């Protein structure tokens, strides 16, 4: 999603009013209920939230200069910076060590990388197709990517071939290296 993202893709930047800040925070919590306990710490009342509208209807939200989440359609998606601060709020899968370098190069994740011994998928019923998932890696503490399930986690287990997760955002991509000034 951010493979070719550059500063030239930015259309406009505007401050988010405090009334809309409240709506945004409520929306984040409704999407990721576990964020409720930390939302005021993540986005303090007096923080400066900026909306950066970009090409392809991508909208980035920065909180005090750091991009914490974004959206292309209705759904708010966390950035890795946000995930690293409070990882347990999101649906999560794990790839094996062999898949790490492919993930970091921006490739979609193949099913076998999610089903091998070093990988982890949730027990049934698992997650539905199109769920936004945080991607962890074998023997690593922190997430390395955010993706979208191209089939349900149960289907990934049973098919075990082809693409399982569409890459959205990973360590080192232009969104990761983006700074506001």
């Amino acid at each position: 999603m951010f493979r070719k993202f550059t500063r030239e893709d930015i259309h406009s930047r505007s401050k988010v009013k405090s009334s809309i800040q409240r709506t945004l925070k409520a929306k984040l919590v409704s999407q990721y209920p576990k964020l409720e306990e930390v939302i005021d710490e993540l986005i303090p009342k007096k923080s400066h939230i900026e909306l950066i509208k970009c090409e392809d209807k991508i909208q980035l939200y920065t909180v005090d200069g750091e991009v914490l989440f974004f959206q292309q359609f209705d759904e708010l998606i966390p950035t890795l910076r946000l995930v690293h601060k409070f990882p347990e709020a999101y649906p999560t899968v794990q790839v094996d060590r062999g898949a790490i370098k492919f993930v970091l190069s921006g490739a979609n994740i193949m099913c076998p990388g999610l089903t091998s011994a070093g990988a982890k998928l949730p027990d049934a019923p698992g997650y539905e197709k199109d769920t936004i998932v945080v991607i962890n890696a074998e023997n690593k503490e922190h997430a390395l990517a955010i993706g979208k399930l191209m089939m349900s986690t149960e289907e990934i287990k049973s098919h075990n071939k082809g693409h399982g997760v569409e890459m959205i955002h990973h360590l080192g991509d232009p969104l990761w290296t983006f700074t506001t000034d």
Partner: protein
Amino acid sequence: MPLQEVVYCGVCSYPPEYCEFTGKLKRCKVWLKENHPDLFTKLYGDDNGDVAAVAGKLAESSIGEEREEKLEKDLLKLQTKQENREQRELAKKLSSKVIIKREARTKRKFIIAISGLEVFEIDMKKLAKTFASKFATGCSVSKNAEKKEEIVIQGDVLEAVEAYIHSLLKEKGLKDVKVETIDTKMKKKKPEGAPTA
């Protein structure tokens, strides 16, 4: 659960546990040891021996000895490639030249044009702003005759600009880069830069 403060590598920007995948591991390790010795020990063990770290990973990894060995080989290749690339880039930087030109606009008015900065990963617009406020004058980025970007400053500030560019390059560890000043009014060139030592 409180919020976590994750350390990011000062070299590659990843959480240090992923440095091994960036091809910059050598420099990453130096940075980590200096800035977060405890984390260094956690990731790479007490001694600096790469052998021990690899052996440790082998024991933990699920992907099997053969695949792990291949992975390590690939990562090493990546590292060599990255190092070569960095060397090439450094050579390119060192061999390029910054030109600061003073031109007379009227009898008493001058402009200073700086070109050749593009290879140094300097944000030209930002630098122009810095100059504008530093010298309280007009400063902009424009394209010169060779279609390269240059910074144009209004006013006779040649010496100050020269000093600033030198300090900027020094900050980037590139103090050996040549900086040439051309003063078109005096019709005199004076080469500057590389120390003789």
